């Protein structure tokens, strides 16, 4: 797929998609969005790069092995469950800080959990798409 237009615009759109994915992740608790949708959009960004510039470039831009993303995401999501245990609540009970931060809004363990979901979804899609679009299927 050697299209000049796609190559030129691809990265730009991918960057926009990434920003949009963060936006979805952060607003998810109150408005449509969330970690799952955000993760899919972020994955979409890397899929776009892969289609326009090939798997190696997409891998390089992602920077992390997708397999590691799976582990990191699961750990982040699981870690968000532990703070509740310290105050004697069941695992994964949501805990919130009431201050409203700029950009982030209210911060709490569910947001951390959602970030974990985001990372896992990004990892899953990238892993599947990269391996299907594998190096040998290039050119």
């Amino acid at each position, binding site marked *: 797929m050697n299209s000049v237009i796609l190559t030129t615009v691809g990265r730009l759109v991918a960057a926009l998609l990434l920003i949009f994915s963060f936006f979805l992740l952060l607003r998810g*608790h109150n408005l449509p969005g969330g970690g*799952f949708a955000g993760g899919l959009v972020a994955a979409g960004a890397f899929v776009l790069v892969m289609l326009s510039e090939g798997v190696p470039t997409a891998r390089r831009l992602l920077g992390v092995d997708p397999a590691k993303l799976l582990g990191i995401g699961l750990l982040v999501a699981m870690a968000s469950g532990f703070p509740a245990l310290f105050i004697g609540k069941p*695992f994964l009970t949501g805990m919130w800080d009431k201050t409203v931060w700029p950009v982030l809004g209210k911060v709490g363990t569910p947001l951390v959990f959602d970030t974990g979901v985001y990372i896992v979804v990004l990892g*899953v*899609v990238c892993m599947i*798409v990269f391996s299907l679009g594998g190096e040998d299927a290039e050119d």
Partner: protein
Amino acid sequence: MGQLSVIAIAIVFGAAFIAPWLHRRLGDKCGIVLGLVPLAAAVLYASMVPTIAAGGAVAFRSEWVPSLGLAFDLRIDGLSLLFLLLISGIGVFVTWYAAGYLHGKKDLGRFYLYLFGFMGSMLGVVSSDHLVALFVFWELTSISSYLLIGYYHTAARSRASALQALLVTGTGGLAMLAGILLLGRMAGTYRVSELNALDAAALVAQPGFAAVLVLILLGAFTKSAQFPFHFWLPNAMEAPAPVSSYLHSATMVKAGVFLLARLHPLLSASPLWMPIVAPVGAVTMLLGVAMGLGQRDLKKILAYTTLSVLGTLTMLLGIGTEAAVKAAMVYLLAHALYKAALFMCAGSIDHETGTRDPDAVGGLRRAMPFTAAAALLAGLSMAGFPALLGFVGKEYFYKALIATDGQGALWEILGVSASVAMFALAATAAWKPFFGPLLPTPKHPHEAPWTMWIGPILLGVAGLKAGLFPGISGGMLIAPSVHAVLGSADHEIAYKLWHGWTLALGLSGVTVALGIVLYLAAPRIRAASARFAVLGRLGPERCYELLLSGTLGFADWLTRTTQNGYLRNYLLTIFLFTAALVLWTLPSELSLPDSSALIPLQFLPVVVCLLIIAGAVAACLALSRFYAILALGVVGLGVGMLFFLFSGPDLAMTQILVETLALVLFVLAFYRLPLFSHYSKLGTKIRDGIIAAGFGVVMTLVVLAEMGAGGADMSVSKFMGESSLPLANGRNVVNVILVDFRALDTLGEITVLAIAALGVWAIMRLRPKNTEKGGDK
């Protein structure tokens, strides 16, 4: 003091996990350091001796799953303490012994991981007061012993033996679990101390108690290798010597005997106890020595005598009188001490000479003086020579048999015959290799390193000391354990080496005389036994093999029939099965909604629905994959649009994103697929059409039924909608459900997603390699 019991188990498990690291740092010396861990545990347990000898118990309790009534209950009484000291004490010597026996092995760290895991599990089994915790530790011993027996995992025989041990003891363990659960329901408690304090006669009279008894006995019999489950134990001799020494002296195989003793106060009240347990024990006792006489391998000889001793202990517990229990406890202690030592000596002989055939070794006493001394002490105890603990044990054994009513002299004859054979086998295993003329062996014999003889010597000396001064061990260890097994403390228990000129002493004399005769005849018996080897192929082991191959064959057939590998067949199965289930239950609930409950037709949704239908039809008629994929995309996006129209923006967004990525995936997969080469036949098409349409109708009925019967139950939706902001700080209910209300479900789902991704990755990674290989050939 209760915490000490947990700390002891914890340090042993802890040592298991640092063992591989320690081995990398220290090499072979790690074994000597690790040996200090069971030593520390043994010291902790020894500190409990005064409390328990005074009739007390050490207990620890911590809630585990309070909502299920499960607690982590440890309770150490006399019986537990006897076992704990044996497990930790012999554990020290086994750990040191392994450092010498397996020195230079690269995976020694892994070996210690298994060994300490096993040790910790055994400590857990004998100190648990809760039957469920006991079961968990019990299964852990099965698993860790599987790893230990299969330590030489490159040898097929070793793997097969390990699997056999696991399957036999594991199956028994499952039966035991069923028995435990039934017992818990019947008695209303799972705590051993409470069970043993119950009115046993009333409980035993309940209907169904026979099932409880048989199931629990199955667990104990498989673990302790009682006939007809005995065959796994001799096969487990494929394990390295330290493992055999540990598993078959004080630990693994004694766990079954321990369970019988533990639940003795309760279970022995059943009228079935004695008729089942005592004969099974007696058969095992005789079978063990009889088969042992025919063996040409020192370790196998010891294995069969272990079998015989386990039978003896089971028989004594089955008889269950005070004298019998007393005999069982002394015999158990004596056996643990001498058998651990003898297994280690046999291992040393194998290690230093290169053979384990009793007819091929002799006169090693000069080359291996320490090992010879240790073997001699242990062997004398095994043979039941005066002044050693084995003698005391045998005296009590005879006294218990003499005191048993009924059947005339049957018990005495059985007991004496087993002891005579035991004497001959003790001489074969402990005397024959070291005395007489020196025989040439594959390796030039020399003394084993100190790590390998220190343990047997000390164990042998312990047997001698306990025999000479039976009052000390008797008062501290035996009496409390007998009290625990009998469930009451009002028994006068005195221990003596010398009982006067009694019938038991007379029987001992007869035993020694006949034993010497049998020992002299032993080589001829071994030579003749080869002719009877065919009999072994007809025993219960054959049943095991048939059962195993039958199960594997059935599993193979079932997998090939149900897992045919065609996605279309799986889909057909799912659709038909779901439709059948729905149609079975639906008619009784179906009441179509009246038209007022339905939303009137609107222009936009109708157009979208038509688009979806058009997409579906186009996908079916498409002549190339590419068009089919595009048409399916129309269907997916249409569904997304419907979500939008009926105010589900989250769903719509996700649907559209998934649809987009699915399209990309399809296109990528596309590269790798062959062209559409053949199309379905007309008949298949009609069949598929009917199924698809039928399934659509069924799903429509489900939706209508949902709306019909007074509308759907909206209470859950209402609760979620109302409490998402106050309880979870979020206005987006869908997201709040995902990350807060049902976060655990989501955690499970993303784990599944991750595993699926790994699966795809693995398939894609492995496939090209395979084709390359195929190309090379």
